[in-house]
């Protein structure tokens, strides 16, 4: 790796003029295959480095979105239209017309939708009209930061105010991290980058990239990433003011912690989701669940249907990507926080090496309740 680190520059108002020219080319190429647009872009005299142009073009693709739907439509249409060779214009026109009538669309729609899922063949479209330059800048920034963190050795996020969302997202995606308090009152998240791992770097990198859109909701933060592109170390510093696309609330499947909490509640346990972080020296630990287990008389009261005093609090943290070293570190942190009753539930598919420890339980997909109950019994 090169000793000289270079800095990754994000997009801002200085990029507006050439992005405007690029948008002109896009509008001029509407309806034509992306291949044609790219040829035009290659020959255009845009005052920007080709890699920056490519980033903005990816942002355009993001904005036009909807690949899954396009794939289904195009695949069905190809099955309907493509077949024996149409060797003359009449045969070709007839086949397209039949498909158009069958689907209730125009012939030109059939022609353009046929290849709508192929990166270079699909037609250039702007369904919501010409986007403002600022929207492209925001999406280009998102793309550039996400690409950087996917190629990062380490990422540090310092957040003021709304750090909890970030920490919980880190936990939800099972990223290897530690959290501490900074001298300026900030929460510091040190997240291991994918290039520091030996396995599952792509999956891990994608999970890490999911953090980036959340930065749009952070009023005050700093992100530093040390990355590697083509063997050259590059650093990225991100802080407001910065244009990023607004976060769209996504409908997501319940997390493993949420499903476990539901299972525990069904089994009549008293469960607290996302309890407050615990101080462990200079650092913080974020258990996913806290469970109050009835002991002694309370247990018999519970069995009789009348909860009484005498509860033991157990903490549970779900760990995604991990190594034995990381699990040991986690257990140490809980010990430093004065927590003895901790269970680390480790995703067996995402760990490189399981730690042989009575408080470390492996699971796949869903946590088996009986295994967990075995610990506190």
């Amino acid at each position, binding site marked *: 790796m090169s000793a000289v680190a270079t800095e990754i520059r994000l997009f801002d108002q200085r990029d507006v003029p050439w992005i405007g020219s690029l948008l002109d080319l896009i509008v001029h190429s509407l309806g034509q295959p992306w291949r044609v647009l790219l040829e035009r872009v*290659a020959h255009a005299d845009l005052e920007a480095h080709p890699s920056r142009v490519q980033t903005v073009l990816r942002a355009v693709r993001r904005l036009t979105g909807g690949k899954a739907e396009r*794939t289904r439509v195009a695949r069905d249409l190809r099955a309907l239209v493509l*077949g*024996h*060779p149409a*060797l003359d214009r009449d045969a070709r026109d007839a086949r397209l017309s039949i498909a158009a009538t069958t689907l209730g669309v125009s012939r030109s729609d059939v022609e353009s939708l046929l*290849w709508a899922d192929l990166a270079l063949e699909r037609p250039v479209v702007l369904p919501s009209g010409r986007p403002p330059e600022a929207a492209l800048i925001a999406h280009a920034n998102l793309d550039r930061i996400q690409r950087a963190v996917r190629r990062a050795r380490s990422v540090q996020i310092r957040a003021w105010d709304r750090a909890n969302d970030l920490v919980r997202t880190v936990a939800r995606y099972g990223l290897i991290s530690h959290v501490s308090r900074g001298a300026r009152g900030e929460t510091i998240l040190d997240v291991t980058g994918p290039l520091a791992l030996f396995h599952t770097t792509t999956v891990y990198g994608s999970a890490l990239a999911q953090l980036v859109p959340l930065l749009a909701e952070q009023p005050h933060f700093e992100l530093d990433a040390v990355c590697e592109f083509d063997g050259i170390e590059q650093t990225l510093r991100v802080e407001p003011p910065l244009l990023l696309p607004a976060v769209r609330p996504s409908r997501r499947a319940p997390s493993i912690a949420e499903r476990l909490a539901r299972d525990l509640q069904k089994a009549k346990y008293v469960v607290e989701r996302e309890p407050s972080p615990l101080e462990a020296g200079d650092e913080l630990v974020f258990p996913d669940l806290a469970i109050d287990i009835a002991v002694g008389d309370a247990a018999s009261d519970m069995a009789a249907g009348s909860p009484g005093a005498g509860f033991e609090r157990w903490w549970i943290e779900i760990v995604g990507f991990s190594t034995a070293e990381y699990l040991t570190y986690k257990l140490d942190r809980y010990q430093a926080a004065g927590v003895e009753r901790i269970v680390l539930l480790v995703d067996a598919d995402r760990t490189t090496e399981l730690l042989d420890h009575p408080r470390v339980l492996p699971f796949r997909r869903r946590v088996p309740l009986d295994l967990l109950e075995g610990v506190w019994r």
Partner: protein
Amino acid sequence: MADEPVRPPDIWEGAPKVQVSSAWQLPPLRWYQQAALAHWRIAGQRGVIALPTGSGKTLVALAAIAELGVPALIVVPTCVLLDQWAEALSRCWQGEVGRLGDGEYRVGAITVSTYSSAVIWAPRIGDRFGLVIVDEAHHVGAWCPGEVLEMLVAPARMGLTATPPPPGGELGERVGPVIYSIGVDALTGDALAEYELVTIPIALAPPERVHYRTQRGRFAHVYAKHARRQRGEMSWHQFVRTATRTTEGREALEAWKDYRALIAYPTGKQAALRELLARHRGERTLVFTGDNATAYRIARELLVVPITHEIGRVERTQVLERFRTGEITVLVSSQVLDEGFDLPDADIAIIVGGSSSARRQVQRIGRVLRPRPGKQALVYELAVDDTTEIEYVRRRRAGLERPVRAAGGVR
């Protein structure tokens, strides 16, 4: 094969032999398959077997696994081949086939893995197998990193290919030398169908000729200048690297791309392709192009099905099934159909364009050589006169042993 005593070799003592050595139902081997296996045995159960596409390389490997009776790992380049190997194994062996790749991660006594999954899994399971089969072995050292084979302890190794690379290199080091090789022509009329290769000269239209000369001249001028500077010792890679640093160089590369795009599918080729498809209407035909853009262009113009890396697995499977049943008769592709695909029987291949690779040419021709009583396959090759494509065609023919008929009938 079934009559021969199945015994594990001396070189592999510690493996659970019984899992693999029982319950095989293999069809009898043909003469050249037996010969290949015998050569491999004599070579100390290491080496590469080169047999043409469609001649039954898989069966040779299955016979080797049955004969050794030790756990075996088969590494293949694509998920499609992973499926095909797993299916071939389950047809003749009763055990559960392990799979590594395409979302499945299960290790068995006989396991099929994609190259990329083998990269990840080799450190963990590299000590479990006594035999490793490398399919499409000419990719060792590139697509299939040599390190994968270094991490496997298997003493017995067999490489399979239709187009062996030159001696030495990583393949020789990790798997062994080519210990048995037989060409297409030695098997035509026996294990492979008879075929005829017809080259069709294509003339550029006058405006196309002018455009070609202009762009070719623009490129050749800059290329010659660079070559003189390097005193003739310049690879294409070096040229591209230096050319992209200057405006003149970048323009030369643009001119190169431009005239290559022109000869990929000029009007003459368009007319010839239509005429050939009309002549062989209803016959299963594969159209090979030099790049995806041309494949899509043909698909767009003639409303035929393209098969490229962008066409998903589900759709590909459906298309191949439609091709198998005769519902569609023409497929167009640039590279995907070249190798590693169990294509249904086809009679006609039309090579619209391609690289100068003799290896690829052999693979493409192999696609129409699946034998059938009375079958005479036809391979048409379209070559634009007085262009660089003629040199490409000449180099491609170097991999073939038979004379080529030039036809002027289609223009």
